[in-house]
């Protein structure tokens, strides 16, 4: 995609004015960092509140007699059992149980389902969803909405000043509210491991709301660079890297993506494979590695056993600013995924010691009860 074809979010001008470094991402001009840089932005989010523009992500409504039932043909979650005011994670599956995308679905109100999918996948997702739902339910792309994420330990007090109802929500609650003088959809969730909210607003109001939130001295704009290091420390997989059409949600370490009722019914795509994997028959699993020496192991680096035999690959890796060292996610045969054991990562031809650790790398701070 050439530079000219890249789209702009409603916050493009605000990013440029703030001195952001803009990069192509998912077909959009997106801020990878602002003036403070990735490291400081990461740490600010862990200590205060970071404001992210994630308007490249796809927002849509599914409407019909029973859109949840229709949607369950494609996804792993129990969405018929999704209660009003709640949000739930799922993966969009192919026939082999691989992941076409991962997504969030919410019932913020009585207007069907509200879904949020990855920006780079959204056109394909909507096509697949529209085909599967044809005659039963409709997909309406909400092209006129922006999506902000406010994340960090001070996100809740900051947002409560504008949206008092937000304080009464817990992790994965969803609500439709009137705030900032307009209609807003919020969920208490995010992609950093911190407490926080994702906030869907009309595009025409986005810059005003963005600037209003930034007026609070506890809030700074944070780029996609820090979003990536934050999610990596939180042990959250990134679609297209840690998950793709060959990887199942079980291999990716996301078994909760497959709802209990769905497991019992076995009525989802790829149920043969995923059912076996849930019973323990896995060829590979996600491994979480702390790199004990040398350079950070990044995507594509080979993983070897203690004797140096290659057993897998890193799918996401880098330096964890809050962790204080290099960390990586990769895939290995299950017998190697033993917490505390030593493996190696091969960086620029050199084997370096790494230790299998638990996920998340940095404790998550979701507010599960008030």
């Amino acid at each position: 995609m050439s530079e000219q074809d890249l789209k702009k979010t409603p916050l493009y001008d605000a990013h440029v004015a703030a001195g952001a470094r803009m990069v192509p991402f998912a077909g959009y001009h997106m801020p990878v960092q602002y003036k403070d840089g990735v490291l400081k932005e990461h740490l600010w989010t862990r200590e205060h509140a970071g404001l992210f523009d994630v308007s490249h992500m796809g927002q849509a409504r599914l409407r019909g007699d029973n859109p949840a039932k229709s949607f369950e043909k494609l996804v792993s979650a129990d969405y018929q059992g999704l209660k009003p005011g709640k949000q739930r994670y799922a993966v969009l599956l192919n026939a082999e149980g691989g992941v076409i995308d991962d997504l969030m679905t919410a019932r913020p109100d009585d207007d069907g389902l509200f879904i949020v999918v990855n920006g780079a996948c959204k056109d394909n997702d909507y096509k697949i969803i529209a085909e599967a739902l044809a005659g039963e339910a409709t997909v309406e792309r909400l092209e006129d909405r922006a999506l902000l994420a406010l994340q960090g330990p001070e996100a809740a007090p900051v947002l409560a000043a504008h949206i008092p109802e937000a304080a009464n929500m817990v992790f994965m609650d969803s609500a439709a509210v009137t705030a900032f003088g307009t209609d807003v959809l919020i969920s208490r969730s995010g992609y950093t491991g911190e407490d926080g909210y994702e906030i869907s607003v009309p595009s025409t109001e986005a810059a005003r709301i963005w600037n209003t939130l930034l007026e609070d001295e506890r809030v700074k704009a944070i780029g996609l660079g820090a979003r990536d290091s934050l999610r990596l420390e939180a042990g959250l997989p990134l679609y297209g890297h840690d998950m793709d059409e060959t990887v199942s949600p079980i291999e990716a370490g996301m078994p909760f993506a497959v709802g209990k009722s769905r497991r019992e019914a076995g009525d989802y795509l790829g149920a043969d494979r995923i059912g076996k994997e849930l019973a323990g028959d896995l060829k590979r699993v996600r491994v979480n590695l702390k790199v004990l020496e040398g350079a950070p192991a990044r995507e594509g680096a080979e993983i070897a056993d203690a004797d140096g035999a290659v057993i897998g690959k890193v799918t996401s890796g880098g330096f964890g600013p809050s962790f204080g060292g290099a960390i990586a996610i990769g895939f290995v045969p299950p017998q190697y995924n033993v917490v505390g054991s030593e493996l190696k990562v091969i960086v620029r031809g050199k084997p370096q010691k790494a230790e299998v650790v638990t996920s998340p790398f940095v404790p998550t701070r979701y507010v599960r009860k008030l």
Partner: protein
Amino acid sequence: MKFTKDHEWVEVAGDVATVGITAYAAEQLGDVVFVEVPEVGKTVKQGEALAVVESVKAASDVYAPVSGEVVEANETLGDSPETVNAAPEAGGWFAKVKLNNPAELNALMDRDAYEAFLGTL
């Protein structure tokens, strides 16, 4: 001090060139979290990878602005990679290279030419 279009600098004393990256390059990289310096005794050709510098986000090669033998490496960067950001054109040097073709220096930019080059980016 002389400069390359890849944003390395060299400072020559006698027949030894000290090599680092420019303040512009350090700013572009962002916070440096890891540096891999070359082993002493390694011979490098002009334009070959001499060192690796890593930010939170990515790894970047540092290319040798001149050919020669590495006679000293800045091992302090192992514990203090942030020196590359704090003092890119001083304490953040990567290696000292004994020149085997001093004429290579003639093709490098002086500071005025480098500043003018930055203006075109």
